[in-house]
């Protein structure tokens, strides 16, 4: 036992000091990090709802075994002006996190914003651009959205894929469809 101690006392001592150091770093940076994440989501939530959003109320709905985050977007007078649904899923490279905006009655998609992605720079990661987000505005939220490579028409609930980034575009649509079909029916619980 004493041999073990004499060989490893430094490791144990350093381990303890480092653990304390790390706990300190966590305490120092943790709140900012959480704040950053939250601010990013809120910014996206505001951008996908066309009306002027005064307050955002965060809620969660239980979908199968997971909890999904939903933002209730309230206008200046406290009335419901839209919903923002948060979800993530797999893209071409890795996780894609996005926010889908819904009209207050849950019938129309008012916007979509990709918040996190590590898709191919210059191609796949253009799903974060406004130009791509705009393609989702005004689509029917009750029917599935489909992706086409050319000649998309909003009447048929289609969006145009980004040239050279079909898989990323399809991934975004797949995630959007999934959250719409799973979370939309539960919105009534939160009204």
């Amino acid at each position: 036992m004493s041999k073990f101690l004499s060989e490893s006392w430094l490791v144990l001592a350093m381990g303890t000091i480092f653990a304390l150091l790390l706990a300190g770093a966590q305490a120092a940076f943790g709140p900012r990090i959480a704040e950053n994440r939250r601010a990013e989501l809120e910014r996206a939530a505001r951008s996908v709802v066309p009306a002027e959003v005064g307050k955002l109320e965060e809620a969660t709905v239980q979908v199968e075994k997971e909890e999904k985050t939903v933002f209730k977007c309230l206008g200046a007078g406290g009335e419901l002006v839209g919903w923002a649904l948060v979800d993530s899923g797999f893209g071409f490279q890795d996780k894609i996190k996005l926010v889908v905006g819904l009209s207050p009655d849950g019938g129309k998609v008012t916007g979509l914003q990709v918040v996190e992605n590590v898709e191919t720079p210059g191609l796949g990661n253009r799903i974060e651009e406004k130009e791509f987000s705009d393609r989702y505005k005004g689509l029917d939220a009750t029917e599935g959205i489909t992706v086409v490579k050319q000649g998309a028409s909003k009447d048929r609930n289609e969006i145009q894929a980004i040239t050279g980034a079909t898989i990323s575009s399809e991934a975004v649509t797949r995630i959007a469809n999934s959250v719409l079909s799973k979370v939309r029916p539960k919105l009534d619980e939160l009204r």
Partner: protein
Amino acid sequence: MADGNGNSAAAQFKAGLWSDNPVLVQLLGMCPTLAITNSVENALVMGAAATFVVICSNLVTSLLRSLIRPHVRILIFTLTIATFVTIADRFLAANLFEVSKKLGAFVPLIIVNCIIICRAEVCAIKSGLFKSFCDACGIGIGFTIALTILGVVRELLGSGSLYGIPVMPEGFDKWVIMVLPPGAFLTLGILIGVVNYARLRTSPGGAA
């Protein structure tokens, strides 16, 4: 300022920049070099993070060098590096949120970046504080320089911009492959070839 193994602190610093450049000569730390050099911003932040970690790690190792027993030294190096990497990672997530998202898992991967463990093993464990510090700075800056060269080439050709600012003329057709994995391998391979060529020519008798 000479120390046990004959190199002065200044020489150690210079070595890290060119003759012992961690990426281009020692061929260490390839993984982040290839992964995050698709833009200049990523390259600079990664270089800065790695430099921070290697400086802290070298300083701690050098401070405790008389206490570290041979059997446990790798474990101690790794613990030290893991701690400082975690601090750097948290710092980035708090203050440079966007970039930290792009760097993703590669910041924690600095832990297994052979460059840093190598410095502790080769220099810091035998040298005084100042020399270890200079060594760390040299290696860190050398690493950052290599990363930045790659970043500049890849971002310029692949996205037509530098640090996010569009630079290439409108009609320039982006070589997207440069920001994809093959482009990374290609650029680094050619860069190493160029560096080797320069080294072969400048050394006497053309011996490598």
